């Protein structure tokens, strides 16, 4: 089918007949966190795009709505995320053109993305992203993740990149079924704060998105209150006296 070949012909062929492929990312986004709550799914990410160790772009939207039923958040190469959005745009367009009462739900989008990511990985030309796909359809909540090599799974809460190491432990301890929206946001902000303190590619400008049966809402970017007055931060070289 046309859609699949579109996603797979992106390795560029250079003049001398060799092919080029992705070896490393350039502009990257950091963690995305997602969790299910009572009415649906909530997802958050900061709006930063790093160019190596430089925090180059400060207003990158890394969470986007897909169709009526899904939200997609991505970390990793921003240009690859934009490419994925193009593929999904076309997918949703054809789905809508049928105009027949059927629609692609989050499960279908998640699996489509898995197929795309895995196929690209097999050609040694991956889309350098970790994707979080959340949505609600017919009362069923769905939250899944796909990595750049095609590994995919579903869970009640997911996170990419540093979020896996810093946020998931908090979620494993404090997430429970049927969180209210306010509780979910609070838990989300707790995780985001830890990431802000400890992830050097995180910036203090976040968007929190929610999806329910009614639809998608993505908040305007906002900042969290941080505290840097800890006594251990006073006189930071206290413990390292003697180093040249």
């Amino acid at each position, binding site marked *: 089918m046309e859609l699949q070949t579109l996603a797979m012909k992106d390795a560029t062929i250079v003049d001398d007949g060799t092919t080029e492929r992705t070896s490393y990312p350039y502009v990257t986004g950091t963690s995305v966190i997602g969790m299910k709550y009572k009415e649906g799914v909530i997802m958050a990410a900061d709006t930063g795009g790093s160019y190596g160790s430089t925090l180059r772009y400060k207003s990158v939207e890394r969470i986007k709505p897909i169709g009526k039923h899904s939200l997609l958040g991505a970390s990793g190469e921003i240009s690859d995320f934009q490419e994925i959005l193009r593929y999904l745009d076309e997918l949703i367009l054809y789905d809508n053109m049928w105009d027949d*009462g059927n629609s692609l739900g989050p*499960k*279908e989008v998640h699996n489509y993305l898995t197929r795309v990511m895995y196929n690209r990985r097999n050609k040694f030309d991956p889309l350098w992203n970790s994707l979080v796909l959340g949505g609600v359809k017919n009362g069923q909540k769905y939250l899944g993740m796909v990595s750049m090599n095609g590994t995919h799974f579903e869970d009640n809460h997911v996170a990419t990149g540093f979020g896996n190491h810093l946020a998931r432990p908090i979620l494993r301890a404090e997430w429970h079924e049927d969180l209210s929206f306010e509780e979910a946001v609070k838990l989300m902000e707790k995780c985001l704060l830890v990431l802000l303190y400890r992830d050097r590619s995180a910036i203090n400008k976040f968007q929190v998105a929610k999806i329910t049966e009614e639809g998608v809402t993505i908040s305007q970017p906002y900042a969290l209150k941080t505290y840097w007055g800890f006594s251990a931060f006073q006189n930071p070289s206290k413990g390292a006296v003697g180093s040249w």
Partner: protein
Amino acid sequence: MFRNQYDTDVTTWSPAGRLFQVEYAMEAVKQGAAAVGLRSTSHVVLATVNKATSDLSSYQKKVFKVDDHIGVAISGLTADGRVLSRYLRNECINHAFVYESPLPVSRLVVRLADKAQVCTQRSWKRPYGVGLLVAGLDETGAHLYYNCPSGNYFEYQAFAIGSRSQAAKTFLERRFESFNNYSRDELIKDAVFAIKETLQGEKLTSAICTVAILGKDEAFHLIDQKIIQEIIDSIEIKEDAPAEQAPEQDEAGSSGAAPMDI
């Protein structure tokens, strides 16, 4: 239909705007053994007459499972039907592989119809000589479609195709309005009855009929021959009972009026 000078190629129009080869292909469907389909809001039933060429041979397969949620019954050139069933199975399996979810029935029949249309517009092809009753269930509910060699498809509450299908259609026309409320078993019973109508006198046994059902919590499957025979027997009992009373009524009414000549 009689032979004329516009019926050699499928790519030749007649002056009246007809494609005779396509119409002849639809004739092939009418010559095939009967197939009927009925639909309620939660179930769809397909039934076919199994015609064997001789007593020595077995009958041809006319009902195919396409996926857990879709099945087809065919009438006409069974070889064409087999090939199209393979195509349908392929489409379903490809969709399930990419999207992990069942292909919506309406999208499948459109693909099938488009495939059939291609054969009505190429000089090196011929139309498929088979009509398909596609029964399916997806998130928009239970569906029954009829795909014909012309490339058209229609949705039905109930339909019958093949030889002597008019008798079944007449039967279904009387009852279809209540099908949506039918239970699973009532639907099967009416399907068997419709098949009986197409036999017009010939004895109906489970050996010469195939029945398949699909429902909300029931994957598409063929119904066991023993169960079909039980249903046939229960239909026959109902018919025999009034027949026993008839002779007495005749004696009572024959005194004055002349016998009716229907």
